[in-house]
């Protein structure tokens, strides 16, 4: 605590000195991953520069490198970034290791818990869960959704053949079981057509996000985030069934589908390879653009289907924006955040292509009709669940990847064995961090 106060004091002194010399205009840097929303954010902050005189640069790095680069800077207590749009899983580390500035006061003052969609507040901002302490302002809402080929689905011949084979109408899948059938139906390697494209990249969280979407919908959980209990939860029969379904879907992917994330999954649609493709909503804009997707007119979107009991969830993506505690320009950053949460800014943000978390914008008909996928996005944002946000999440994510990847892609062992092994590793890791003692 003393250290934090001291840092703040120093930051304050530094700020006064710098402020006195440079007549108020600041250059701020926001760090984010390299993707379209970061470009939209740059456009948005250019507006802010016009109004306030503070210029902001959005610095980006590829996704696979995002976490490493951010935490290298944090751990060195560097001030290269004034704000960071960090993944939801980073909250624990950001909060407990002192990288993020506590935004609780700001949050309460502006009643952000009511302004922003509940799921985004819960997963992007609050840590520990239910504590009422906030470390970020929801910036980009996101979740796993699906793109599909409308023309294949609506082809009368296909519809007839599908009905003859499976006994029900070919339509947007309501359940994972239907999705599996449709994937199998469209899996025709000799025609270079495949059923489904899913995430399998295990270098960061891509595959885990795909798998957890299935596990959550099947009624499984990744553990009790409050008590760290995993035995009997992470390897429950529901979770096993979800993982088995994910492996089942992998059978109907295009060949060589062993290291795939958003680029490959979008290619599956733009190259006409697959009937359905999983992706985060933030990656959908190129799919409705004629110049980047020749099938833009015939691409549709749907929300993650339900499991066998009707439970329906999707993995949460998206990020909140946090102020880095080592930044020397925290006051200017806070000023920007005040501007960012204004209703008209949020509206503008949505117009530029950003996925606002603001409830009033999300509920507005303009937003829901703005693109073919906004409605599915709106539906999804109220049924999202997230991965662990504990400070050691990187370790447990790697352990999970180590066990589920050989099962799904390498065809080794069973789903039960993969999740049992995950539970064993997780228990050992949580023990190492004394998670069970208090």
């Amino acid at each position, binding site marked *: 605590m003393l*250290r934090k106060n001291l840092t703040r004091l120093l930051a304050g002194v530094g700020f006064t000195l710098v402020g006195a010399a440079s007549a108020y205009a600041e250059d701020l840097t926001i760090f984010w991953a390299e993707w379209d929303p970061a470009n939209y954010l740059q456009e948005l902050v250019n507006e802010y520069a016009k109004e306030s005189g503070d210029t902001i640069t959005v610095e980006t790095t590829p996704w696979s490198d995002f*976490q*490493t680069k951010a*935490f*290298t800077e*944090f*751990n060195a207590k560097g001030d290269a970034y004034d704000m960071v749009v960090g993944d939801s899983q980073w909250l624990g*580390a950001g909060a407990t*290791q*002192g990288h993020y500035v506590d935004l609780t006061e700001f949050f309460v003052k502006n009643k952000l818990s009511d302004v922003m969609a509940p799921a985004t507040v819960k997963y992007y901002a609050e840590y520990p869960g239910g504590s009422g302490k906030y470390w970020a302002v929801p910036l980009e809402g996101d979740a796993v959704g699906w793109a599909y080929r409308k023309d294949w689905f609506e082809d009368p011949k296909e519809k007839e053949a599908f009905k003859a084979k499976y006994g029900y109408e070919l339509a947007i899948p309501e359940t994972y079981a239907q999705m599996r059938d449709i994937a199998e139906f469209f899996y025709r*390697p000799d025609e*270079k057509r495949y059923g489904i494209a899913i995430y*399998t*990249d*295990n*270098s960061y969280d891509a595959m885990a996000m795909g798998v957890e979407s299935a596990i959550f919908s099947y009624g499984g959980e990744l553990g009790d985030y409050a008590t760290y209990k995993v035995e009997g939860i992470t390897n429950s029969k529901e979770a096993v069934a979800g993982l088995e379904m994910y492996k089942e879907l992998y059978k109907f992917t*295009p*060949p*060589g*589908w*062993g*290291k795939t994330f958003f680029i490959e999954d979008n290619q599956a649609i733009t*190259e006409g*390879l697959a009937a359905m493709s999983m992706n985060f909503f933030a990656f959908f804009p190129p799919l409705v653009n004629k110049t980047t997707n020749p099938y833009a007119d015939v691409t549709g979107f749907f929300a993650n289907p339900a499991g066998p009991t009707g439970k329906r969830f999707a993995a949460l993506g998206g990020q909140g924006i946090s102020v880095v505690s080592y930044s020397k320009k925290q006051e200017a950053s806070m000023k920007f955040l005040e501007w960012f949460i204004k209703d008209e800014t949020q509206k503008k943000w949505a117009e530029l292509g950003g996925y606002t978390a603001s409830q009033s914008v999300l509920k507005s008909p303009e937003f829901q009709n703005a693109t073919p996928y906004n409605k599915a996005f709106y539906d999804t944002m109220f049924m999202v669940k997230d991965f662990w946000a504990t*400070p*050691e999440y*990187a*370790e447990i994510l*790697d352990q999970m990847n*180590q066990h589920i*990847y*050989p099962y799904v*892609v*390498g065809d*080794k062992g069973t789903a039960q064995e993969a999740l049992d092994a995950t539970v064993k590793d997780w228990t050992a890791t949580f023990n190492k961090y004394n998670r069970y003692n208090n």
Partner: protein
Amino acid sequence: MTSLATKLETAAHPARRNGLSDLSIRNLFIIPTVLFLIVFNIFPLIYSLGYSFTDFKASSNAPANFIGLQNYRELLSDEKIWANFVITAQYVIVSVSGQMIVGFGLALLLNRSFPMKGLVTTLLLLPMMMSAAVVGLFWKLLYDPSWGVINYALGLGDFAWLSNPEAALFAIAITDIWMWAPFVMLLSLAGLSAVPKYLYEAAAIDRAGAWYTFRRITLPLVAPLLLIALIFRTMEAFKTFDIAYIMSTQPTTEVIAIRLYKQAFQQWDTGKSCALAYIVLIMVLAITNIYVKYLNRVKER
């Protein structure tokens, strides 16, 4: 005595007139290098050795506790780490032996005069000059089952090189062979051109066969240079990171350097990573030492 002293003095004068003595020139060249090495190599090396006996995590504010050899004990009894070492060993054997065979073969082919020899040699050296990251990305495209040229040329249909757990490591090794065989070729070529022609003439007079000539003249004389190539390539292959990291995320291709990277920079398990880095260093040193011993024996012969 006096005459010698005068001579030395006059000899030293020109240098002094130019401003710098031999001694200061030597210092000028050596001291920055030594300082650089101490600051960026020796100091971190010793510092990390210290960390390898602690539970230090660069991501936490908690102070490092001394835990003795626990990191080493845990690492050496961890089955997963051993699996990474086995993968690394497989990779080293396949990739290095492939490079030696292809590289030496190319050198034998090039060791004669033919038109545009210089150009051909230069072109063959190109792969080695590229960045490993670029090579990895390109070969990923070449291996692609849907539009990759390799499957098209070999008629393999949609065999997924990099998604197949068994084939992925070989696919990466092939890329490494393509990239580094020219290096072996270059060294072998230097060795081959140094073999005196009269030895071959003598062998021809004695009616020695081609195989016999190769085994008894060419190979022994090129051996020292081949061994140097072998040492370099083994060390490099043991530490491979970039190509493997870019091309595949299969657990079956997780060589030790990738595990080390994940442990150090994704999980921030700094103390344990230092210990693992030391284990790798000791292994590389041991392997290199065996080679060097052998190299000295070959030279004596």
